[in-house]
């Protein structure tokens, strides 16, 4: 439950923050922006809920077990200068890298004093729609990094663009010395594409099957100019994404945080012993004896009076003894 609560609290904060930012600037656009923000938040709320549910698949007890010590550990690095970029979302990318001690030593020898005054930086290039050769980026920006760091999250601020990053040294003269260049990645679009050209297809094997069955090519697409306009409008107003049958806004209810609690339950144990081959009933129901003739029963004990006749009968059926404990339970707040 704690995780759910935490997520909800976090979401509440996010929502408040988003609401604030949505109201501040450019009143002309604010409505559309707000709508977009609500949509995003809504998706986030749904995502967080899905996560909380999925998490229950991996139930783990509350008490933490001591993890067995690993006999070996993973290496710190793999002995190659390398930087790798990955997409985290439409704005953020993640870089991890390794710069070997040998490379640093080599650079140290080459650069002498300048090496010690050089800054370790990530140079982030916008390489959208080009084949990047190191010089033709649309623009770039530098991020100064701590020499101990081996990975970094970078806010590119630009969905729908391609990025490449160099790790290297920037000398006091402004000269940049590259140590390694990353792969190129593409940050996904944050909204619908502006490209509306349409292309339709019937896959070849499907076509072959249809042709063979003598069906012809299937229906032509119901596209008129007006129709297209209608779809476009619909896309902008978000109708196609969500036809709005149930309510759109999802106010997140924050459950009360319970600080202190006390649970008290009572159970009753009825136990005894007789000849191992005797027959015993408790409240008229026969019970099984242990091989040594003992027995033990456990009952949840609600408020009220319980009459519990215990009857033992010898195996030959001649002797019968009945003992009847009577238990009364009362709970006071």
């Amino acid at each position: 439950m704690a995780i759910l609560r935490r997520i909800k609290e976090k979401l509440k904060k996010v929502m408040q923050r988003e609401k604030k930012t949505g109201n501040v600037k450019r009143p002309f656009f604010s409505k559309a922006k707000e709508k977009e923000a609500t949509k995003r938040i809504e998706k986030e709320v749904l995502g967080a809920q899905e996560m909380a549910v999925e998490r229950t698949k991996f139930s783990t007890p509350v008490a933490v077990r001591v993890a067995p010590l690993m006999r070996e550990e993973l290496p710190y690095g793999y002995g190659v200068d390398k930087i790798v970029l990955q997409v985290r979302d439409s704005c953020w990318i993640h870089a991890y890298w390794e710069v070997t001690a040998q490379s640093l030593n080599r650079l140290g020898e080459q650069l002498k004093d300048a090496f010690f005054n050089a800054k370790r930086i990530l140079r982030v290039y916008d390489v959208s729609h080009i084949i990047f050769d190191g010089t033709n980026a649309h623009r770039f920006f530098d991020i100064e990094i701590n020499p101990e760091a081996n990975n970094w999250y970078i806010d590119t601020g630009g969905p729908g663009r391609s990025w490449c990053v160099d790790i290297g040294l920037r000398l006091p003269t402004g000269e940049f010395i590259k140590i390694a260049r990353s792969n190129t990645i593409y940050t996904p679009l944050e909204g619908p594409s502006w490209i509306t050209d349409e292309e339709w297809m019937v896959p070849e094997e499907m076509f072959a099957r249809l042709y063979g069955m003598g069906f012809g090519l299937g229906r032509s697409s119901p596209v008129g100019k007006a129709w297209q306009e209608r779809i476009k409008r619909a896309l902008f107003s978000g109708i196609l994404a969500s036809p709005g049958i149930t309510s759109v806004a999802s106010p997140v209810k924050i459950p009360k945080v319970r600080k202190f609690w006390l649970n008290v339950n009572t159970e009753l144990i009825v136990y005894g012993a007789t000849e191992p081959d005797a027959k015993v009933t408790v409240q008229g129901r026969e019970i099984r004896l242990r091989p040594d003739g003992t027995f033990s029963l456990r009952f949840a004990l609600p408020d009220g009076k319980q009459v519990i006749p215990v009857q033992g009968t010898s195996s030959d059926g001649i002797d019968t003894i009945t003992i009847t404990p009577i238990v009364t339970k009362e709970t006071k707040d």
Partner: protein
Amino acid sequence: MNKGYLCIVLHSHLPFVRHPEHEYFLEEDWLYEAITETYIPLIWVFEGLLNDKVDFRITMPLTPTLISMLTDPLLQERYLKHINRLIELAHKEVERTRWQPEFQTLAIMYLNNFCRARDTFERFKRNLVSAFKNFQDLGKIEIITCGATHGYFPLMDICKESVKAQVKVAVSHYESIFGRKPQGIWLPECGFQPGHDEILKEAGIRYFFTDAHGVLHGTPRPKYGVFVPVYCRGTGVACFSRDLESSKQVWSSIEGYPGDYRYREFYRDIGYDLDYEYIKPYIHPDGIRINTGIKYYRITGSEDKQPYIPHLAREKAAEHAANFMFNREKQVEYLYDFMQKKPIIVSPYDAELFGHWWYEGPMWLDFLLRKIYFDQETIRTITPSEYLFENPRNQVVTPSMSSWGWKGYSEMWLQGPNDWVYRHLHAASERMTELTKSFPQTNGLLKRALNQALRELLLAQSSDWAFIMGAGTHSAYAVRRTKEHLLRFTNLYEQIKSGCIDEKWLSDIEYKDNLFPNIDYRVHQ
């Protein structure tokens, strides 16, 4: 004549957890709980529908790891032990609650369900996959595949060889189990990266799924949004995308159906509630309290939980099924008028949501499928293959990189607690590619070592480990698994390179990580 289609997808997945080296292993319970609470109840639902001649279609991704566990003799044996212990506990509960009829009814319900689950398990000779195969052979469900170990593809893009291996191992595993090729794939976590459709095409896969924004933000703009599939540019692999409206109705734990106060509360379990000495034999051997699966309370809506009342929950499930169907009918009518074309509403869920988290989920599904069959004509349930057969002409779009995880992209698997794994995973992938290149033809011990190396790599790639690290505090097991498989891989790599393979050790890890018996390391290239 129907006006549109509903495609319900139940994604069934658990990571490979199997520890023959331990008598009892806590995380194996994930499987046992899912068997009792989800997979078997779903089998009951499908059997009931077949018995009553209700036509229905469900699409079920069964992941290769889940199939491997469900068909593993050791885990089958252990499940039997597990369910027998539960049955014993349920018997005791029936006795213990003798003076509390409101609880005793429930204890009897659990006892019956557990016994019935055991019977079902034994009826299918312990192999539940054969039950699902049977439903597929009857044309009611379409089983599709997934990444071999549920590796998250977008964060593997730097080494596409691993994406290929995830897909190819999965496809050949599917063929060995079901005797045919999979038509579709559930990309793990719906993680799509443009270009991966080529890998799918090469493996003979015809369709996959993305989250809504995968298609909505695709290029060019999809004319019909998420309500018809699109073909990927260049490959023609079809992409279906999720309808958020229907997802939200079920998924949301607050406003969604499962949060109704008449439904059973997941978080109150006798494993935590009852006296320690009494419950001790049924919890973790070290005495740590765990969920047993016996839960007596309903959600209630306040902290003062009330006992669960099965018939009220059942009525509610029927009501919710009717509501879901009504909303889909309205949605389809609206879209049909608007699009002049039959829309397909894709509603994917984690299968384990049904029964495990949402106890009444299987019941709801049962009501829903019956109602759709008997009570209306607007919608028809359909599988993606059938849809494509009936509607082969679709728009060509390049879907956007996306996932169905938290925030819609890769952040769930790429954040502070788990981002360290990728440098190691990628290094291992590179090394695997190197090995494949170095040894195009092998046999004997070397081949065994190479195959095992790929198994270890695949196991390390499971998105579940990163998910658990990212989601919470109890990540020790996930960290351990990631490291363990990576270390085993590294040892194998070094042994193979140096030409001295430790056969005894190799046999040991082959015995522990025994999935994909017919794996061929050469797929990793």
